[in-house]
């Protein structure tokens, strides 16, 4: 909005198209369009409203996490406990309501508080010990995974929550987290709206607020940021808590969408989030990336995931596809970084 006010006449030759091509999310956007066109042409169901609502739903829950993980990655950290968090938060609500008869809203809030605590602990451990977040959150990942399975088995004697629908006031959180909105033929899951909202808010924070400035700075050069007064520790802890908070949101979306949750929910999804963030233009080394790009990355995942089914291929091709996307994205991002950092 301000580029014209301060632009130099020597820049007049750079076209808006060229400018846009330098954004980190452009690669993911182009890839998403290509994949859409490919499956729309090669399969019958993909581009129908019914087909679209399916891959949008898959994209949405992955996308919310990918956006959070992207912010964290820009801030220079990873969170391997992000996937299992989506199962953990759902299980907490399920166990507290079906087994202990706790009010469903109270259970939802308790679950949020627990998630934020785990995020805080993740952040605090990383800041205080100076250990790589990869190791610290690998620890929390296993702890949560153990609690999910063993805890659920111990408390309710099985590995899945049942009878959620009979819990009093189930309809209220269900309306917020699990309802479906019909737009013409398109049955849109409410999670898609959450996804769009999370991506929009994250983009706003990243590009327009001082906290966004700090996120880029702590990921790009923590030492220098500290020297000029950026609250490095608080920024990173905040990012871990935001990621855990998004894990809770997705946990609620999954729980109230299907009215059940498995003890193993979310395990192994953490790498999908990271792949989506990297495909969306985030540097593994921090300091560079985009929230909206991660949302596109999740869209690519959702479309490929469903498109492969519609095309009648072996679903394991998805893995090969994801791996290839990741490698291409990493190479592309590395090239972008070199160009951005090179001294002239």
């Amino acid at each position: 909005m301000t580029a014209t006010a301060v632009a130099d006449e020597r820049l007049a030759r750079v076209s808006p198209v060229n400018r846009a091509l330098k954004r980190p999310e452009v690669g993911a956007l182009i890839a998403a369009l290509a994949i859409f066109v490919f499956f729309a042409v090669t399969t019958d169901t993909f581009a129908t409203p019914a087909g679209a609502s399916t891959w949008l739903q898959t994209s949405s829950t992955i996308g919310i996490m990918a956006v959070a993980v992207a912010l964290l990655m820009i801030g220079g950290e990873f969170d391997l406990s992000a996937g299992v968090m989506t199962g953990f938060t759902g299980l907490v609500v399920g166990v507290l309501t079906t087994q202990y008869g706790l009010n469903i809203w109270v259970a939802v809030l308790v679950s949020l508080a627990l998630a934020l605590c785990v995020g805080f602990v993740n952040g605090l451990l990383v800041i205080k010990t100076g250990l790589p977040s990869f190791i610290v959150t690998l620890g929390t990942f296993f702890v949560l995974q153990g609690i999910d399975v063993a805890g659920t088995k111990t408390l309710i004697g099985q590995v899945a929550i049942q009878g959620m629908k009979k819990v009093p006031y189930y309809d209220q959180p269900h309306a917020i987290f699990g309802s479906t909105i019909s737009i013409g033929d398109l049955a849109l899951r409410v999670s898609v709206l959450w996804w769009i909202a999370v991506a929009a808010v994250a983009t706003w924070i990243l590009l327009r607020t001082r906290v966004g400035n700090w996120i880029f700075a702590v990921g790009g050069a923590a030492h220098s940021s500290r020297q000029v007064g950026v609250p490095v520790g608080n920024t990173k802890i905040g990012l871990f808590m935001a990621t855990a908070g998004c894990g809770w949101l997705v946990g609620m979306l999954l729980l109230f969408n299907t009215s059940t949750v498995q003890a193993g929910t979310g395990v192994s999804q953490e790498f999908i989030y990271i792949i989506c963030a990297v495909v969306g233009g985030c540097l593994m080394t921090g300091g560079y990336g985009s929230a909206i790009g991660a949302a596109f990355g999740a869209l690519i995942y959702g479309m490929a995931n469903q498109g492969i089914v519609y095309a009648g291929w072996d679903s394991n091709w998805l893995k090969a596809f994801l791996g290839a996307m990741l490698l291409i994205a990493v190479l592309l991002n590395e090239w972008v970084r070199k160009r951005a950092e090179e001294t002239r």
Partner: protein
Amino acid sequence: MTGEERVTATGKRIGRVAREYATQQAREAANGKPEAPAAPRSPVPAGARSAALPPRGTPIIEVEDIGKSYGRVIALREVTTSVKAGEVTCVLGDNGAGKSTFIKILAGAHQHTEGRFVVDGEERHLSNPRDALALGIATVYQDLAVVPLMPVWRNFFLGSEPVKGIWPARRMDIEFMKQTTRKELLAMGIDLRDVDQPIGTLSGGERQCVAIARAVYFGARVLILDEPTAALGVKQSGVVLRYIAKARERGLGVVFITHNPHHAYPVGDRFMLLRRGRSMGDFPKSGLSLADLTSMMAGGAELESLAHELERSMGASSDVVEELMADVEGEKR
């Protein structure tokens, strides 16, 4: 704990103090009276620093027989010099001469153990960099504290971003930030093509200049530059030297640390030579030629023998040898 670590530890506070200081200066300028510093909420006004600058030639910092020992190691002793508004004081010396120790005292990172340290006519013992910043003494260290991948304008205001609007719509005043960055750099003779480019794409000299401009903008009256030209090529050094001259023109006092007399001489008004922790004197420019300065730094005889030694090993046509020979000749004259 090295000085750098110490700075890091207090860095968080430094940024905040710089911000508070700039706001306070602006308030004083507006009200004509000092006020207790408050957490700034509004953008720092552009005229922040001008209110605090004393008339040209007024001593801001004076040190008398200052000394510093680290336990039994005497790193610095009997150093006397002054930093005046609108003048550049060069501190010259070889590695280990005590230059860093000296500027760390000025910057408040270390306390002196002997002598008098006077700021604005008042004797001071600075206990941390925060105190120094509150007095308008800002230090630009060699690592510059910039984030390479971030645009110039984001770097310029990093840690002190001006905001507008009410939460949750509170946001950075991006237009103000971009315009100010451009204006401040332009005022110091750096005409950036695009403040949106990552600061890592600037040349080393330009980056140094942005770091200096930032310190100036956030209220510095005295700028301490730790070997700003050490890592730069000839041309880039020229950019920084021009910039130092510009800061002097604006009426700031500058302390320029270097081991290169060829860099110090053109911009310096006063030269303080350090050798093995002792001051070899504090000279105004009028009483000193470049040749004097060079030979004093290396010690005349040592320099000549070095020149001959290098001539044997590298050949007389080498630039280094030619430069050295010229210095030796200059000294004999």
